[in-house]
């Protein structure tokens, strides 16, 4: 079984190849790069290095979001087109869960975070070796989510490249229960993605869509204009 993992849900590009339980190769680029331009060449190059032909792939794993709308869509478009073209299973894993994988053995709660501007972020809460979800992935006011974490009364490890942006409010609300992942543990790793994908169900490829965790601005405004409830 040969897995290809792709995570383009935020600015880092993370890709990996695994054969059964062996990670053959993995790359993470934390540069301001354009995924649309670089993801496929990076995949092509990585597969050439590993001497694996497209037809030899048996599974595709992709980070489904949340994250940058465009970023998530690029990874998902590549993943679903590859899986459909090669007639192999597609597996999708929460992009936040992939990040949570960086804190797998932390004794407490793991909180992956992606900044979403204006004091908001995509956040989730996970625990344990199997990364059970404690609080569902969501788009939230950062302070509001931190208060939910506070109620758990446990140490919380924050991970993701954006945690510095919210460091002050995290310390303010959680005090000495807040821990921050070391820089090498803040980036998404496609090896984590692949290992998590192995435990996930196969997706209906044609209907696979990103988990945006937020409706579009146009729809929110439309609902507001119609006098609808929350935006």
């Amino acid at each position, binding site marked *: 079984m040969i897995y290809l993992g792709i995570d383009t849900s935020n600015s880092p590009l993370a890709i990996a190849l695994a054969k059964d339980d062996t990670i053959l190769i993995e790359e993470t680029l934390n540069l301001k790069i*354009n995924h*649309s*331009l*670089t*993801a*496929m*060449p990076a*995949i*092509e190059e990585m597969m050439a290095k590993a001497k694996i032909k*497209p*037809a030899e792939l048996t599974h595709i794993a992709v980070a489904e979001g949340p994250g940058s*709308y*465009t970023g998530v*869509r*690029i990874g*998902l*478009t*590549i*993943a*679903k*087109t*590859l899986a*459909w*073209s*090669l007639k192999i299973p597609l597996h999708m894993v929460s992009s936040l869960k992939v990040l949570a994988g960086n804190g797998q053995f932390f004794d407490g709660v793991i909180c992956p975070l992606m900044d979403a501007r204006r004091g908001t972020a995509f956040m989730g809460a996970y625990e344990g070796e199997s990364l059970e979800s404690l609080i569902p992935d969501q788009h939230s006011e950062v302070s509001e989510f931190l208060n939910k974490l506070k109620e758990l009364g446990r140490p919380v490890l924050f991970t993701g490249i954006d945690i510095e942006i919210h460091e002050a409010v995290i310390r303010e609300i959680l005090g000495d229960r807040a821990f921050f992942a070391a820089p090498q543990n803040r980036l998404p790793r496609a090896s984590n993605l692949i290992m998590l994908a192995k435990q996930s169900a196969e997706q209906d*490829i*044609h*209907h696979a*869509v*990103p988990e*945006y965790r937020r409706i*579009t*601005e*146009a*729809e929110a405004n*439309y609902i507001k204009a119609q006098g609808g409830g929350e935006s």
Partner: protein
Amino acid sequence: MSEDIYVLGIETSCDETAASVVKNGTEIVSNVVASQIESHKRFGGVVPEIASRHHVEQITIVIEEALKQADMVPAELNAVAVTEGPGLVGALLIGVNAAKAFAFAHQLPIIGVHHIAGHIYANRLAQEMEFPLLALVISGGHTELVYMKEHGHFEVIGETRDDAAGEAYDKVARTLNLPYPGGPHIDRLAHESSHPVKFPRVWLEEGTYDFSFSGLKSSVLNYMHNAAQRGEQVAPEDVAAGFQNSVVEVVTAKTLRAASQYNVRQVIAAGGVAANKGLRASLEKEFAEKEIPFFIPPLSLCTDNAAMIAAAGTVMFEKGIRGNMAMNGRPGMEMGSWI
């Protein structure tokens, strides 16, 4: 005897997710278009983020359907052609990345096609092109006169300096409270008018083949505004007819003059607005008088589709042009010749 060439086309530059298989650049084997128009209607226009979301939902379904209708497997294809630009960036890159992944999976050549070149080559699916040729590309996003000496040569001799013609149609339609997309409604209303309002003709400086529609659009808006202030009733059909007459007169005159000056053997129209009955009738009448052959492809080939991308891509394929995995969506892509 040369072998037949089969190209898969993919188009996602705006609000249609489309895939098609074309044989030898001239024959449609399959042509699938998933339109999102219903999703954008309530917003009165295309919302880019929503367009991108729909493209991801549709892309593999549409490609599969195109292959199924063609009764072909990927190994029978010679290349994949995809719209590289111009268009909405988020929308373009769904097609581009799907095309790259498909080409990579099947180890096929990939070719990036200019959307306007596609619109022009839509004609070749209905009628062989004769050179030198003049193409009037007129749609919601474009208004251009393109001169072609031969296959793959494009010289943009005139283009809009502000709004595309179709954009002006949509804006005027909105002020008349017509549903989106407004073009067909204005076209229909215009035929009901007996006293068209006289709006200005925007010719720009003498000799230019460029267009401008924002001034005309403003005239229509001012007219409506003034009438409202005076408490006068406006007959929508007279406004629609007045606006359409102005667009049609200028577009027809410039196309005619360019056709004569460049001494072309054929004039073709392309793009969604080319389906406008008023414009079509005017162009057909004038070119018939001038005895210059003039063609407009069927409506299904005027609006965005992937067969036109495959048709243009086939000529590029024959000329040895190849893209690679580093291809990106290019929202502001310029039209360049392939020779």
